């Protein structure tokens, strides 16, 4: 199953034009600056913008097709929508908020157990409370549960953490991380926080000024030098690795990925656990020979794929490390001194590795 869409919407001073196809499972991040049309695109998918034109297919189900004159109203689309503000019904307690969508779905189409969702999102103790008496984080958890309980074919989350403070964010993120393994349901997750995106998503849609400028695998989109993501200050690459062992003497944990081994500060994870790490471009330096007598532990053999301009004084270098890719941000002067060209065999030194999940 995949989700295919071509959406167009023209408003005064703004034009949205996006065509994409995303996988029928896993989390797809929709990323872009504020004002780039992310929310509008989601609202079109949900049918909340009646003036949009285009085609939307979710699996075999046609939600919208101008050529066939099909436009399902939002309540006819099998979707869950988590808004930035939780939008709980203030006159209903938490249980009745959860039941609102659940009881409107025919029992045969329910794929998700009521009690299970309550447990996943830790709502047991607040199930009888009224929404205005809940904290922001609790409200958003109820909103997520409420959307899930309609057993949707597509779950849309519009910056669900943006309105929350850091504590509430930290409270909800673990729930979100666990969702994809617990449900086989595609999720479109909107955010303008790169950190959230790298933690949660597998693929990515990149939106700029109402236009889709890239879509595909998260790792590829993040490292492409022709896209704005690699030029952000916190730009970097994402690598999936596995825990292979611990070093008790130096309190380190050893991770294995396609390009070698990474040492990080000791993690309380079992051998074999999957971990996702992020390597920021500014933390990567390049050497022509294998550096010796250096304090940097993580050094990988790499080959230069391409170089791209970043600022008058800096360049971005995309490196292949095993089957993964790493981006390095270095000065133009260094690149000239090392005579870097695509195809060069080099060594990438990684000063620090951030664990994202």
């Amino acid at each position: 199953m995949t989700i295919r869409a071509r959406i167009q919407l023209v408003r005064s001073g703004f034009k949205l034009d996006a065509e994409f196809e995303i996988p029928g499972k896993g989390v797809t991040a929709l990323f872009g600056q504020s004002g780039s049309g992310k929310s509008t695109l989601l609202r079109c998918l949900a049918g909340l913008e009646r003036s949009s034109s285009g085609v939307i297919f979710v699996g075999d189900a046609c939600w919208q097709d101008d050529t066939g004159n099909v436009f399902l109203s939002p309540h006819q689309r099998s979707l869950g929508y988590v808004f930035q503000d939780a939008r709980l019904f203030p006159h209903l307690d938490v249980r009745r908020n959860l039941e609102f969508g659940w009881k409107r779905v025919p029992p045969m189409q329910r794929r998700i157990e009521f009690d299970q969702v309550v447990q996943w999102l830790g709502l047991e103790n607040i199930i009888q409370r009224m929404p205005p008496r809940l904290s922001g984080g609790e409200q958003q958890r109820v909103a997520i549960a409420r959307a899930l309980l309609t057993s949707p074919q597509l779950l849309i989350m519009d910056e669900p953490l943006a309105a929350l403070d850091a504590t509430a964010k930290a409270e909800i993120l673990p729930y979100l991380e666990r969702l994809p393994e617990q449900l086989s349901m595609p999720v479109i997750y909107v955010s303008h926080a790169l950190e959230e995106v790298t933690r949660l998503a597998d693929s990515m849609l990149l939106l700029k000024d109402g236009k889709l400028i890239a879509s595909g695998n998260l790792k590829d989109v993040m490292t492409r030098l022709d896209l704005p993501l690699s030029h952000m200050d916190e730009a970097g690459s994402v690598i999936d690795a596995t825990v292979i062992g611990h070093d008790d003497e130096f309190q380190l944990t050893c991770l294995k990925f396609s390009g070698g081994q990474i040492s990080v500060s000791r993690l309380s994870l079992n051998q074999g656990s999957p971990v996702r790490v992020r390597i920021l471009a500014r933390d990567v330096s390049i050497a022509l020979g294998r550096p010796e007598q250096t304090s940097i532990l993580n050094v990988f053999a790499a080959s230069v794929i391409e170089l791209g301009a970043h600022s008058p004084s800096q360049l971005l270098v995309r490196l292949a490390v095993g089957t993964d890719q790493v981006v390095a941000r270095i000065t133009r002067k260094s690149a000239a001194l090392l005579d870097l060209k695509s195809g060069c065999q080099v060594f990438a030194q990684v000063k620090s590795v951030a664990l994202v999940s």
Partner: protein
Amino acid sequence: MIIESIDWAPLWLTLRLATVTTLILLIIGTPFAWWLSRTTCRFKTAIEAVVALPLVLPPTVLGFYLLVGLGPHGPVGSVWHNLGGDALVFTFTGLVIGSTIYSLPFIVQPLQNTFESLGQDLLEAAATLRASPLNRFFTVVVPLARPGFLTAITLAFAHTVGEFGVVLMIGGNIPGKTKVVSIAILDHVESLEYQEAHLLSAGLLLFAFVVLFIVYTLNRRYKLSLT
């Protein structure tokens, strides 16, 4: 006893008129107010002005046009007559029509304000939770607009009870048929029966206070229950 000498018929007639009028107003006023709160029609302002007319017009003006319009030779009255209907003026039916038009703003304006203040957010959420438009109205709008409904119903009811000019013009003063309390009070005063006038007036005063008090209490409690 003075109580026994009082003719209670005007009181019952008034309550009947106010009840029927309020029910009709709810049925036509609710969808109308909803439409006004959501429409982008360019005639919206003009329509709002027409609805508000009874607030500023002398009741006798409205009553006069209703009398002319609903009379056997008037545009509405003649059609009605040709369709086999009985006379509209000087009847209970005529009173209901007059009161409905006269009290329309008292139902439409509070409801429209309430509906507008509800916004779209919760309705969109309900739509993504599989609720159809009508379903959304009854499960989200109506419960949340409860204070607005209470206010609208109270105002329309009380305003119909208290009206005078329109009723007198279109209904006349026929005992048991169109003689409502406000007219009965005038009758008593003209016949210098001050005690009877007093009793009816005091009764209406008390009635109005009790109704408003109950409504304000209920609305306050409802707002507290939402926090």
